């Protein structure tokens, strides 16, 4: 049901009323934004001294370094979590009961634990000297488990006739998986996989809490170093600058997911595979640690 079903086609009076509401809403929003800007200006957040630093090449270099660190963590975590996800999904679809059972326990456990609690554990017990690996392994364990569920439900969503036909012409299970089920499943799961990668990218910022030098941490270190101008510290300019970088990165990746989704929908022949609507792993939002 689209939104327009909820109300009649507006007549002259309804149009006037909607215009009035629209104008009121716009005024309220503009007033709110204006108030925020006024307060920020009033508390001295826009003083030139707080923003000068961003013009220096050295500063920009540090931001780029922080960005590269974040992207490095993201790349390692994404690659390893996809690998772990594939492994766990294979194990959950195995014909051997003990393997299936063990994989289910692993997946359910890591999905149920808050990611930050895992990272605290890894940082305190295993990677005491190396926050990067505590962050990466934590991300891999959590996102790998979620990806495993996405892969598994993607493969289960391929119509049963496909695997039956493949078995009927004498293919072995590995062949059925590799040449029949996976190629069809990848199409329908790609948007969910990318959405989960967006979650991985967002969660790299948890490194900030265990003091790993990723983008957000660079930002804070930076704000702490900048000498206060008239008693105002450079924290809010930092949030504005570094926040925009993060949001743009995540938006770029999410719009890739939307684009892929639209593309696969257009090229798909016949009905799309039915997806269980209540499975959070498939609703396209990703699951957050």
């Amino acid at each position, binding site marked *: *049901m*689209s*939104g327009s*079903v*909820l*109300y*009649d086609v*507006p007549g002259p009076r*309804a149009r006037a009323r*909607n215009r009035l*509401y*629209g*104008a009121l*809403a*716009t005024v309220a*929003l503009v007033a709110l934004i204006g*108030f*925020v800007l006024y*307060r*920020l200006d009033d*508390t001295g*957040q826009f003083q030139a001294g707080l923003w000068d630093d961003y013009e220096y090449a050295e500063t920009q270099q540090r931001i780029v370094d922080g960005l590269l660190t974040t992207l490095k963590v993201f790349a390692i975590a994404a690659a390893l979590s996809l690998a772990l996800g594939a492994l766990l999904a294979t194990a959950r679809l195995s014909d051997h009961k003990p393997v299936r059972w063990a994989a289910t326990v692993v997946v359910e456990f890591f999905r*149920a*634990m*808050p*990611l*930050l*609690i895992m990272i*605290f*554990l890894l940082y*305190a*017990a295993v990677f005491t000297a190396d926050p990067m690996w505590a962050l990466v392994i934590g991300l891999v364990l959590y996102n790998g488990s979620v990806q495993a569920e996405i892969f598994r439900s993607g493969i289960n969503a391929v119509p049963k006739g496909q695997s039956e036909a493949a078995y009927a012409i004498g293919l072995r299970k590995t062949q059925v998986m590799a040449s029949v089920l996976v190629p069809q499943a990848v199409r329908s799961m790609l948007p969910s996989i990318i959405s989960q990668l*967006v979650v991985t990218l*967002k*969660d*790299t*910022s*948890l490194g*900030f*809490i265990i003091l790993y030098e990723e983008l*957000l941490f660079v930002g*804070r270190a930076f704000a702490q170093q900048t000498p206060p101008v008239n008693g105002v510290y450079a*924290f*809010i300019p930092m*949030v504005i600058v*570094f*926040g925009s970088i*993060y*949001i743009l990165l*995540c*938006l770029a990746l*999410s719009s890739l997911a939307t684009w892929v989704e639209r593309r696969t929908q257009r090229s798909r022949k016949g009905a799309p595979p039915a997806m269980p*609507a*209540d499975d*959070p792993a498939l*609703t396209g*939002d990703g*699951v*957050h*640690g």
Partner: protein
Amino acid sequence: MNVLSDNFAMFREGFVGTVELTALSALLALVLGTLVAAFRVSPVPALRIFGTAWVTLLRNTPLVLLFLAVTLGLPALGLKGWDSFWLAVMALGCYTSAFICEAIRSGINTVPVGQAEAARSIGMTFSQTLGQIVLPQAARTAIPPIGSLLIALAKNTAIASGFNVTELGSVQKTLNAASGYNIYVIFLWIAICYIIITFTISGIFRLLENRLAVAR
């Protein structure tokens, strides 16, 4: 010796902190999420644009960044008296509201078109159609995804430990730093606390789902 019995008061405080944080931000997220979902389907374009911007922006913001923005930004906007707990509620509630809004909106999309058409044909306005006819039916399909969103919210409260809020994450951090305890045992107890909370949430939602279910 035993981490739990030695630090029972601390664990209790952390547990209560996490439960309170989860409950209050869930409340805020549900109210805001429903409101923004109503904005997103409303006949007023300005409200629709606001709703879309709210959802797009918050869904693509890392929660840690939102925490930073709220804890640093709101005091600068004049809310000086707020302690870190309420700031954490604000950050978690706003973040989760964007996801709740989308869950409710997809719930609205599953309500058969005839329902809204019938409501309009007997002369109901937009707010009557939405509030009395469509939303109550949308709730039925929106409840399972909202349940998993609230479980995600309960897990996300751990991030507040980085911002001076007493909850289970900060208990773990403090005990990890205090020497003499096995770090895995601390983790085990913290994990059990979280599992109690998430199981309770999923139990409540299973109950709700059963009560709202109708035979079609």
